[in-house]
């Protein structure tokens, strides 16, 4: 029965990957395309934890930053080749996720804020002048030696493919269904034999891994960055709004969120940021009040399955 949904679930990501694979040959502001890929992957990464467990980490950017610095430290101190440094970035995010596992004991708003505080705490450590010899402190990192914009773009695209694959798997596997059951009703799910703690932990780690790898790709692609860029709260906010706007648990929702909202951002947000910020805020307020399950809920509420 689930098989019916699998084909569209595979088709949509494939389409996106092909489009963004071809894009750099047609449009030369590669960094703009890179940003789109970044946010597409981050939105799906957040989808893994929020869409399937209901936990919304406001400090999601903490993993992204950890990934970026994991990459940078590996390059600076170990002179690791970029692909190995990418792995270091993912590992750094995973380590952080493991350290933060106790946060999963908290619920709703407390979890959201505690994760935000955790991301801020990591930022304060990384950017601390006392650690200048290790992280370069607040003075930022320059990795011009490994600068390779075209290659790192395709690495980011591969990560996006991985994030898509994870969400497709969650949507079409017993494990993913169990996770959704936990989200709806932890008590009955637990009594039905689903391991609540294990399920949440896995979703949390996968979500962190995606953000960490994206952060590492960002570090590689841009090569010069500061702790306040790598830990910019705006990254969390954007990813969150994209997911909420489109609708979590689906592939389409976060995708629509990024394409529409980030598109609009690049179209008008750059020239008149305050007006954009206002529209953004109003959009969030309106969504919460009138469409708390996102754009796709217009369809799913009518019983239509959206990839």
């Amino acid at each position, binding site marked *: 029965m689930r098989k019916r949904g699998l084909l569209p679930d595979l088709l949509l990501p494939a389409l996106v990957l092909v489009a963004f694979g071809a894009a750099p040959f047609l449009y030369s502001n590669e960094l703009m395309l890179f940003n789109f890929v970044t946010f597409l992957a981050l939105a799906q990464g957040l989808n893994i934890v929020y869409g399937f467990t209901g936990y919304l980490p406001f400090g999601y950017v903490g993993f992204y930053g950890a990934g970026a610095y994991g990459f940078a430290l590996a390059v600076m101190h170990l002179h690791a080749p970029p692909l190995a440094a990418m792995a270091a970035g993912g590992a750094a995010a995973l380590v952080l996720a493991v350290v933060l596992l106790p946060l999963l*004991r908290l619920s*709703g708003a407390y979890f959201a804020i505690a994760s935000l505080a955790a991301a801020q705490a990591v930022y304060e450590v990384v950017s601390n002048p006392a650690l200048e010899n290790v992280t370069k402190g607040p003075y930022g990192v320059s990795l011009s030696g490994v600068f390779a914009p075209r290659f790192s773009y395709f690495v980011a695209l591969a990560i996006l493919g991985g994030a898509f694959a994870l969400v497709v798997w969650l949507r079409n596997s017993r494990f993913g269904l169990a996770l959704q059951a936990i989200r709806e009703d932890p008590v009955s799910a637990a009594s039905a034999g689903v391991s609540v703690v294990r399920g949440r932990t896995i979703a949390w780690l996968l979500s962190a891994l995606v953000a960490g790898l994206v952060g590492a790709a960002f570090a590689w692609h841009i090569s010069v960055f500061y702790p306040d860029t790598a830990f910019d*709260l705006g990254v969390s906010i954007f990813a969150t709004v994209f997911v909420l706007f489109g609708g979590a648990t689906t592939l389409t929702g976060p995708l629509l969120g990024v394409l529409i909202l980030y598109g609009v951002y690049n179209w008008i947000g750059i020239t008149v940021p305050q007006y954009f910020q206002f529209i953004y805020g*109003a959009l969030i307020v309106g969504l919460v009040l009138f469409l708390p399950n996102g754009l796709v809920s217009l369809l799913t509420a009518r019983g239509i399955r959206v990839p």
Partner: protein
Amino acid sequence: MLIGAIVAGVVFGLYFTLVGLGLNLVFGVMRIVNLAHGDFLMLGGYAAWWLLSAFGIHPLPAAAIVLVVFMLAGLPLYYLVVPRLQRARDSEMLSLILFFGLSQMIEAVTTIVVGTTERSLPGRLLGIGPMIVLGARLPKPWVFSAAVSAVAVLGVYLYLYRTRLGTLTRAVMVSRDEALATGIDIHRVSAIAFGISLGLAGIAGVFAPFMLGSITPNIGVGLNITAFAVIVVGTLGNPLGTVVGGIVYGVSLMLMQTYFSSWANLLPNLLLIAVLLARPQGLYGRRVRLA
């Protein structure tokens, strides 16, 4: 230096009590997190700056004006947003997102209207030079702000414990369901609490230029985290517990600034996480998922 840091911490912490007080009141009564609290505070700061530069109004009467205006503004805002929000399935979580959106709107409008230049009020308005308290030299505006904060805490105490409406408010805080069953007009009680909360944020804002040095439209987000840390440390949902939270925060911040200055900003974040994790049951046992 140690005594000085502690005294300064208490005074500074009293001000941060005022910053968190309204947030805690709203949380206690409505079980929602007003993530735009810091932005209302910021608006209070700009109101004080505008009242001074356009009409020459001293911050003290300005605080009274801001209190009244913000309280009145809180009522319609409450009815526009909160009742609808509370009907949603996970209103606590959604409130966080909704008020974040509101915070973005406020910040955007403020930026459009006043620009991003740092604004401050002349410190001499609240007295020049230091005041010696227990051998510690404190800026007079600090002592002044702390005193106003103490008055505000007293006011909130008197409202909650000495008025009829205050008793009803505490009843809602203790049990929303029982309050409904008893026939308490929850929306009236909540709307007034929301108004008071904005009023308190406004007053805190009037003194923000003195305590924080200067204000810009984007100070709200950072203040929210600090305010949340203060009320979590102090006990969520218990407005008077905010005093404890504020002082713990103030003293530890000052000690950090004295002995490990570059790590000072790490503090509110760590305090927040530590208290949330160390006391997961919380005052109302609602902070933990069943799992």
